[in-house]
């Protein structure tokens, strides 16, 4: 993996003058903003809008004159507009040794642009009663805008300036570094972070997903590197937009074009290789932390969305630990034994890292009993699967509660973005309940046998647990 990155940098060396570590990641040559302006014709042909009149949302799909693909739900009842933007490629694309680069890029997106310094930009947002912020995930970079519709034009112009002329001033850049320096200290007593780190180091230590900020990587970051990296992360061709609010496609399209006008057309990021957990031996570890409770996390190989067992697993997870009080783990470990305030499980279909995982907290004295209880429940799924009634209950909840995810503008914008990111199709909302309903008892019990074998699960315990025989990491 590491070697592949070096090769990319070497290839880029010939294409670009002066390959900094960063440029190695972008094999394509970013086009200058001037070239983009030519793509936006002043003549406006009628906007072609394809309307998907679904059960949960009437989605209007269109491509703006400037070439940006948008999914919009027009919702006139509240005078607000929510816009989400996302680009494939996130912090896993930080070059080795420059961990934090993607984060410093997104941190600075609302910290000054054009004539406005950080305070000027923040003040302008307040004057418009708007919000604009960006964030970097492992595989995605995203930004969101919310504005009152009466201020939409001004809000979108401000965002446009952030994309076209971000400043990366020393003030906010250094502030980011100070905050992260503090973060390097506080994370060392954060149980969730410690569990994550132990997981990454045990299961995929060589993968970009296991890399993290360090004082060395922070020390290597510069505003120039951030400027270059922004042009690789945030491009026009990979931009996905979803929006919900009191606007029409015709009103929104020019605003989106203005926002995207300053983005480079394209860039190339090295693909992130998938992690195959099925080939990794399960393990157990204790991370010492002086506190009264132990955090227990367990994690095993999961299922991708392209696998026919995805929906059976999704339904099965409800009975395992996804269904709150209707799940067996909560029934046994909370309701019957009073060992925890909460325990839950979830499946993450990746694509890079597919997992089935769960966790909860219990007092240190009962950590051994808690973990034994989790394993015993997993084993019961393998031995005897679920009952017809449990399956029916899971399907009833999962299908019946689906409309609850569509009762606000923000939720609909999020749901649509999820569909776009995972490429599920504009009719996914309408198909989804049928996919859940089609799951059979045979399906879930087959998946139980394959995926819920306790031997497949690694356990990471943070605290000062009793009754566990696993190596302790200080």
């Amino acid at each position: 993996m590491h070697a592949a990155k070096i090769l990319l940098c070497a290839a880029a060396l010939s294409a670009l003058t002066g390959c900094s570590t960063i440029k190695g990641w972008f094999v394509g040559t970013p086009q200058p903003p001037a070239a983009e302006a030519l793509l936006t014709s002043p003549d406006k042909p009628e906007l072609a809008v394809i309307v998907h009149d679904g059960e949960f949302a009437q989605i209007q799909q269109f491509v703006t004159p400037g070439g940006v693909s948008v999914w919009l739900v027009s919702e006139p009842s509240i005078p607000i507009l929510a816009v989400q933007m996302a680009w494939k490629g996130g912090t896993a694309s930080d070059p080795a040794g420059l961990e934090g680069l993607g984060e410093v890029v997104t941190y600075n997106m609302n910290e000054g642009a054009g004539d406005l310094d950080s305070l000027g930009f923040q003040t302008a947002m307040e004057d418009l009663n708007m919000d604009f912020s960006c964030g970097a995930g492992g595989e995605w970079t995203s930004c969101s805008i919310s504005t009152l519709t009466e201020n939409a034009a001004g809000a979108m112009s401000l965002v446009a300036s952030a994309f076209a002329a971000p400043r990366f001033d020393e003030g906010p850049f250094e502030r980011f570094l100070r905050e992260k320096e503090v973060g390097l200290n506080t994370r060392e007593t954060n149980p969730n972070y410690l569990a994550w780190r132990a997981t990454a180091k045990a299961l995929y230590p060589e993968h970009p997903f296991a890399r993290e900020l360090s004082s060395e990587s922070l020390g290597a970051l510069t505003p120039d590197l951030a400027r270059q990296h922004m042009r690789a992360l945030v491009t026009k061709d990979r931009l996905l937009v979803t929006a919900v609010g009191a606007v029409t496609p015709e009103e929104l399209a020019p605003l989106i074009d203005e926002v995207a006008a300053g983005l480079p057309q394209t860039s190339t990021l090295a693909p992130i290789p998938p992690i195959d957990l099925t080939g990794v031996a399960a393990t157990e570890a204790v991370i010492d932390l002086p506190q009264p409770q132990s955090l227990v996390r367990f994690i095993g190989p999961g299922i991708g969305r392209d696998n026919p067992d995805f929906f059976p697993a999704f339904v099965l997870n409800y009975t395992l630990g996804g269904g709150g009080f209707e799940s067996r783990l909560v029934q046994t470990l909370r309701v019957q034994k009073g060992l925890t305030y909460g325990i839950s499980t979830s499946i993450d279909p990746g694509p890079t890292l597919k997992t089935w995982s769960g966790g909860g907290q219990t007092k240190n004295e009962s950590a051994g009993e808690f973990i034994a209880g989790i394993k015993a429940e997993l084993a019961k799924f393998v031995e005897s699967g679920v009952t017809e009634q449990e399956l029916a209950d899971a399907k009833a909840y999962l299908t019946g509660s689906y409309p609850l995810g569509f009762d606000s503008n923000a939720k609909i914008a999020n749901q649509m973005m999820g569909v776009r990111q995972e490429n599920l199709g504009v009719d996914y909302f309408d198909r989804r309940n049928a996919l859940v309903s089609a799951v059979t008892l045979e399906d879930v019990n087959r998946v139980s046998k394959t995926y819920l074998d306790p031997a497949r699960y690694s356990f990471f315990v943070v605290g000062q647990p009793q009754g566990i025989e696993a190596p302790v990491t200080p």
Partner: protein
Amino acid sequence: MKRSLAAGLFALFASYAAAEEAAWAPSTFTLSNGMDVVVLPDHRAPVVTHMVWYKVGAADEAPGKSGIAHLFEHVMFQETKNLGPGEFDKIVSRSGGQNNAFTSWDYTAYFERVHKAQLGTMMGLEAERMVNLVINDDPKGPFISERDVVKEERRQRIENNPGAILQEKALSALWKGHPYEITVIGKMEEVAALTPQDGLDFYTEYYSPANAILVVAGDVTPDEVRALAEEHYGAIPASGAEHGPRKWQSVAPLTETVLLTHADPKVRQPNWSRYYLGVSQRRQPDDALALDVGLEVLGGGMTSRLYQSLVEQQQLAISASTFAWTTLHDEGPAVISASPAPGVTLETLEAAVMAEVEKVLAEGFAEAEVIRARNKLAADAIYGRDSQSGMAETFGAWLALGGKVEDILGYPDAVRAVTPEEALAAVRAVFAPEKHYIEAHLLPAEGDL
């Protein structure tokens, strides 16, 4: 996770709704048994949020029984005359519903979110447990295991978290002698001693239609809600339960300044804060509005005076902010807090923060920053309308405190009317030099840094 604690610590900062169009205007009416009803139409999705608020909270607990309001809320999910153990949750889930509950000092609320076709079923369930709860006194039964669950909840929320431990101490010191003195979840040893009989007594005293408010938000009309509410709740006889007035009382000013320190090996970043006695929207409505505006200017966000001075210019802090908890019935804290930049002592930080506070109080606010602050608070109310459940909570909480629907509808206009002089006066009144305060230092354990 279900059955949580609202406002146990700084959890609930209600934002208010804007009154813009009559289309979403709430309706209110009262059933013949005294149960108040609020309907908040929102026709964007075929979904409703159904909430029952009881006008009882941790402030009403008897001495030595801290935590009963919250533990009892857990017990409400266990068993009724007509519903076996766990059946309540099972019916809600099979109906495609999500349910939860939370307890504050001032109220206890239960809710279900469902497709609108299931609203009647949810009302039937809530009505059932309003009158027919069964509290099992089996020592291995659900009351005892829920008590253990609450102890785990306390460990998870407070005892695992040095910042929460210190905050609990600071709030107790601020509210010394007031019913808010003990945190909602209660003292560990008092929770451990609560009995099924305590639960039954609490239920008998406080759970009745006249002591409850029904809030339904979502894809319904007032007429639909009225018909269903009459059918399910209207049949419950007016309460025979008697209880005295709420134990609310004005919070006495602090008579001395106290320094609390908490050192813990888990602390890797110190924190400095001062808790002054603030005001509440119920008791001092005008002052509370003005204080919210003033603290937005002084320490509300990145453009605030404290952030710009301490974080941006002097670079002595990584955070600096002010906040007033005005949404409790009685007076809550107004807090100034800051976290030092690497290498800066709390003493240096404190001196710089207080110098800036004093400078602002002496020089006053610019009109433009006050306009920005009040417009932000007014706009937050419009954004808040996007959340159906958030709206139901805003109205339910305010009505449970004895407030009126009109107060919420009038909030944007009221907050826009706050003048720079009023905002400044409200901040000066709370942080005046002669006021006592609780100062809290969160520190790494000795030798840890």
